[in-house]
């Protein structure tokens, strides 16, 4: 009997002793205040852009900042979209982005199928290659790329820019798609094949529906990359009518001095699609879809 009392557990790590409840609460409050401060500092620049975009001119050009746009106006936005070449830039960006998204999703899907579903000679080498090639600095590649593109007659052409964007997003999209494909247990396809589907049928009926979220995620990644890219567009697209939105935005100031209101309105417009898509991706497009098929 005596041994039982000895073995009886003693509370080693007291989780929340009662007397300390209040101190705990004050500490929580302290952390929360710090958290709020950090949040405010981090978000402020974005807020400041949007606020400025809605402010009338005299509130912008004021030595004492107006923290809240009290008389919001859309005139800055009107000015921004009436800037020369805005609609050209929108059109060019849309062309580039949709081409890059469509092509990269197809190419990445095919390549990732090879990497995830086949064992072949050179597979590991290719994986190392696509991981390593992402690390090559664009700023270094831009010189030989310029030479290459000028030989191919692709300077000042959207097709050249599309080809380059496509290649730059490929390593990442292949890698991500491969991850999605590996997440699908191979037994699902095998079960379909035993159940009477052909290899292709199993692919269409089982693999494709399950890899949908991966396709969406990678296409949004490609979208964001192509939409945000600046250096290549800046170096390769000379004619103002052929430039993309980011180049248009970057050269905004140089057109007629710094006009902060319309500039911030333009910046807000340029950021908007990306912000929306980013928040979409964050929703983690049902990563767990295959979880139910395996184990509990």
């Amino acid at each position, binding site marked *: 009997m005596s041994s039982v009392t000895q073995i009886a557990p003693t509370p080693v790590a007291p989780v929340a002793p009662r007397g300390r409840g209040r101190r705990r609460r004050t500490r929580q409050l302290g952390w929360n205040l710090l958290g709020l401060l950090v949040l405010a500092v981090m978000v402020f620049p974005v807020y400041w852009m949007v606020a400025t975009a809605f402010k009338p001119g005299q509130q912008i050009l004021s030595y004492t900042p107006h923290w809240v746009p009290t008389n919001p106006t859309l005139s800055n936005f009107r000015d921004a979209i009436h800037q020369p070449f805005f609609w050209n830039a929108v059109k060019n960006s849309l062309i580039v982005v949709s081409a890059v998204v469509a092509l990269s999703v197809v190419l990445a899907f095919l390549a990732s199928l090879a990497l995830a579903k086949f064992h072949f000679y050179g597979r590991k080498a290719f994986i190392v290659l696509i991981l390593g090639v992402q690390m090559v600095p664009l700023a270094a590649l831009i010189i030989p790329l310029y030479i290459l593109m000028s030989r191919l007659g692709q300077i000042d052409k959207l097709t050249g820019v599309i080809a380059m964007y496509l290649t730059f997003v490929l390593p990442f999209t292949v890698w991500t798609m491969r991850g999605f494909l590996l997440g699908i247990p191979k037994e699902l396809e*095998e079960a379909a094949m*035993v159940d009477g589907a052909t290899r292709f049928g199993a692919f269409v009926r089982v693999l494709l529906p399950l890899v949908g979220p991966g396709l969406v995620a990678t296409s949004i990644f490609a979208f964001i990359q192509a939409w945000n890219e600046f250096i290549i567009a800046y170096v390769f697209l000379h004619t103002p009518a052929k430039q993309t939105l980011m180049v248009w935005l970057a050269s905004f100031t140089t057109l007629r001095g710094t006009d902060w209101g319309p500039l911030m309105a333009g910046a807000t417009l340029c950021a908007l699609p990306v912000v929306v898509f980013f928040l979409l991706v964050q929703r983690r497009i049902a990563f767990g879809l295959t979880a*139910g098929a395996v184990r509990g």
Partner: protein
Amino acid sequence: MAQIELVHLSKVYGNDVAAVRDLNLDVAEGEFMVLVGPSGCGKTTALRMVAGLEEISSGEIRIGGKVVNELAPRDRDIAMVFQNYALYPHKSVYENLAFGLRMRKVPKAEQKERVEEIARILGLGEMLHRRPAQLSGGQRQRVAMGRAIVREPKAFLMDEPLSNLDAKLRVQMRAEIARIQQALKVTTVYVTHDQVEAMTMGHRVAVMRDGELQQVDTPQRLYDAPANLFVASFVGSPPMNLFEAVVERDDSRLVCRIGETELELPADVAAERPALANYSGRPVAVGIRPEDVREAAGWDGARLRGRILLVESLGSEQLVHIEIAATPLERSDLIDAAAQPPGPPLGVDDLERAVTLLGRFDRHLLLAPGEAVEVAIDPRLLHFFDLETGVAIPAVDVPVAAEVVS
């Protein structure tokens, strides 16, 4: 329903790594055949070759007399239950069940009828519109079974279908699968690493090790007459006691010496196993099932003396670990559970080599650790094995049914 024959079946991976080596196995029509063995023994590879999911390196597989080596899985008319169930996560239970029928172009109305019938039998009627993710482990298992049954295939192939269930559910599903198989009389090949599952479910059990078939027989005969040391140590829980002994000829009698103790082998034992005489003067491996180790009171034959190390009470009986003087077996083909750890002798100081003998005793016997005991060993219940090859030294009227490969 059909017979499944594996003829000289082998699977060799890239660098001459053989997963399955020259496997010959006939599964009769309607038979429940269990492939059992430790992990990596090739049982799953063999099953996947039958399913057509793994290429055959050499040999032949026939289903219903027809060679299927080159047939795609879908053309073999078999159904498979996977270890992780492989339910299509984007399809409802109904669609999962109907998938195979749809692929075979069964008319819509009949699909519905058959799926609903199966769902009713398996108690899934309420969840036909749920997704697999919304089901419990046991329910998923039923859907996986249902998907196989609804197709009414020539054969069921099951790859450790119960291993993802908890212990209680597993016992329940074990009986259920066996019952379903009996009712449908569909030829079934069932893979498991759990010998209890194998013994309780199979009409016949095929024990595999390192890609080679060790023995095929009914569970009872597998237990009573294991073909070699591996099967002896693998089948049975707790496993058979195995240790070294020396067979000696004393005048006309055969004597089996275990440690210092001499067990006289009665004339009928010697007559039953004529080959045993050839081993005189040589060591052999002997085995005895725990339930055949008896308390010595009232026994007038030879006794083994030992000391009790540990008593485990199981309620209905007690498992007693007894240290006796004997030479432990050191062979790689024993599975771990049966191998004797060459630990230091605890109770008996004057013994150079000791073996822990496991005995199943009546629960009413009063036994305590540290006590010296005497156990009776009936020589008629001993199993003998060749120490070199591990093959059983056979008894004449108990012919080993299946071909033994070693």
